[in-house]
């Protein structure tokens, strides 16, 4: 890959002015122009960001919340710190190739703790159930949660169940809250990310979103694509204990790798450069995306994470990840640059470039 060419783009003034104007607009505080909540507000892309920035953060606005992490680090006046995270699950259908709403409810929360660097310990589970929901189906959800929690080694310690009238919910919604313990000395933050750092993904991307899309049966596609839902805490531990200098981690769920990388570029004020030829995408996922006009970079994952590591520790980091089953497919997909701060740029197979922006709208609603 010829990187030297890219460092000094001979841009004309007119074009530069346009780029500057756009970047200024992108950096303005998000405005919420909508009068109603639409599915786009739940998709993890730009609309979700504006709802967060315009309504939720001003409403609550604690310093910890404003850090915009997957979980909050709580100072309890002890040596180790506590990490708290919460997530709701509304996926339809409730069962799909490779998993179920119960698996997601546990793994989603475990992974949010894991990418904060914490060891998952305790969890609460709350259900909102629609009147008329079959008890056997409810039993199945509970059994899936219990099994997933056992695998992830997290203990369910409290919970709640509410029933709403027929039509007031779609079957069942699950909310889980997780508590983990952050060992001393671990420091993962946007501010640690430096130009030159490597971006590593723990395995193939887009599997979960496509698995749910196929399970939904709206499109008659026959492809064997299991969801990747899985707890990643063993892999994150292996990486953090490998001696590699890990700057930051995140799990690319809704909005996919593209949205996660954009959050990183914006919050850390760095540029992210991804290599198309390095992106691990299963052929069946790629084929489905080609057919439907989706971009795998925007499709959700439920058992993957992205880690930014110091460039000199690339090999140690990869070796540590490859030693764990869930991250056996880990590879470097890009690097951090001081060019184009705030932007994610993909180098295409041909050596051309294109922007990878935040997700707009919602190509696949209710995937988790």
């Amino acid at each position: 890959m010829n990187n030297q060419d890219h460092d000094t783009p001979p841009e004309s003034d007119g074009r530069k002015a346009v780029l500057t104007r756009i970047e200024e607009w992108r950096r303005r505080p998000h405005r919420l122009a909508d009068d109603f909540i639409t599915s786009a507000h739940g998709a993890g892309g730009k609309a979700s960001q504006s709802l967060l920035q315009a309504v939720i953060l001003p409403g609550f606005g604690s310093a910890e919340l404003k850090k915009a992490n997957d979980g909050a680090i709580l100072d309890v006046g002890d040596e180790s710190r506590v990490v708290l995270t919460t997530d709701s699950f509304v996926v339809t259908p409730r069962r799909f190739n490779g998993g179920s709403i119960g698996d997601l409810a546990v793994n989603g929360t475990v992974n949010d703790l894991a990418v904060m660097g914490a060891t998952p310990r305790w969890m609460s589970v709350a259900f909102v159930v629609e009147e008329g929901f079959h008890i056997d189906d409810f039993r199945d959800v509970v059994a899936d949660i219990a099994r997933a929690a056992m695998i992830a080694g997290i203990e369910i310690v409290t919970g709640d169940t509410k029933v709403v009238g027929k039509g007031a919910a779609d079957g069942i919604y699950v909310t889980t809250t997780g508590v983990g313990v952050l060992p001393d000395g671990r420091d993962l933050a946007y501010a640690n990310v430096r130009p030159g750092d490597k971006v590593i993904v723990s395995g193939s991307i887009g599997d979960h979103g496509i698995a749910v899309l196929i399970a939904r049966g709206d499109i008659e596609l026959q492809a064997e694509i299991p969801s990747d839902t899985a707890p990643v805490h063993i892999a994150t531990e292996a990486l953090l204990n490998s001696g590699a200098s890990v700057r930051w981690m995140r799990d690319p769920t809704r909005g996919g790798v593209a949205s996660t990388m954009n959050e990183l570029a914006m919050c850390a004020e760095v540029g992210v450069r991804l290599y198309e030829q390095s992106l691990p995408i299963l052929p069946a996922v790629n084929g489905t995306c080609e057919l439907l006009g989706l971009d795998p970079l925007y499709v959700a994952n439920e058992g993957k994470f992205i880690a930014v590591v110091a460039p000199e520790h690339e090999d140690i980091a990869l070796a540590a990840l490859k030693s764990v089953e869930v991250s056996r497919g880990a590879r470097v997909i890009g690097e951090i640059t001081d060019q184009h701060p705030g932007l994610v740029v993909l180098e295409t197979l041909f050596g051309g470039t294109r922007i990878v922006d935040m997700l707009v709208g919602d190509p696949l609603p209710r995937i988790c």
Partner: protein
Amino acid sequence: MKYIDEFRDPVAAKKILSEIERLAATQPHRKFMEICGGHTHAIYRHGLGDLLPESIELVHGPGCPVCVIPMGRVDDAIHIAMQPDIIFCCFGDMLRVPGGKSTLLDARAEGADIRVVYSPIDALAIASKNPDRNVVFLAVGFETTAPSTAVTLLNARERGMKNFSVMCNHVTIIPAIKSILDSPDLQLDGFLGPGHVGTVIGNYPYQFVVDQYHLPIVTAGFEPLDILESVFRLLRQLDEGRCEVENQYRRVVRDNGNPVALNLIDKVFTLRPHFEWRGLGFISHSALQLRDDFADFDAELRYPVPGVRIADPKACQCGEVLKGAIRPWECKVFGTACTPETPIGTCMVSSEGACAAYYNYGRYSQRGRIPVKVV
């Protein structure tokens, strides 16, 4: 992936690019229009603009079916969708297209039952599953998608479906190309022909571009190598002093098109006397409507539609962009007031729209060669 990888081979691309460079070096600045939005999308998605020599400029054409829908038609669609007991089906692209006041996405949030489908057949399936509801399919697209709407309507009639109708916005490509060629704003050296439309109508209908306007046209496929090869073929024609309709997309396009599909279109549709295209204005015989014997399935006859023409917002220059007269970033509101999340114009909505493609993929290009205006 088979059938894809061989058309995305970087080594083969390099070979074509060096041929392109060789020919381009001997020729003046060339301005080629890719008519189809699918090409625009592919060019930006694969970063092809970066790879071509500076003297070759690709101009984006009007071939994005979502982009050419005028605001008044969107309002009509929203009006139908808001009627009681309607299930309104459309392609996902249409949800965010701004009408006079709102979008179909807003209508859905206000309670309209609007569903995204991938094919008109899916809408028909929804109709047979919901016999007590009326299902309306919003048909958009060029000749590429018209046959599938036709098959669906024939199927619906055969089954005697009473609760299914279509709001037809199908448009035809040839009058749009004519309108572009007659526009005084634009000096072109050739066309990349719309490959998918070509699968249906074939190559013969493009002959007028050669005969009347003396410009070469190459029907092009949609993979990166297809597009590069088509640019090469245009340059070669100019180099050899030829001017022909050439078919690069032979694996799919036949010279006489697809007679079965053409026959289906003819059975179900007839030409509208005129149709408003966003930015291009009214163009005679440029769109399709249902034939009289399908009147029962015509949503515009079945439901009251306001049919009010709405002028495009003053700041929006989609018309100029669709005609290739200005490039997306030359529009005053591009990337500021008009972005994919708050689009003012249609070109910013559909992923095939020139503005959306440029904003989403192209705005950071490693070679800043684009905004140079060449007279």
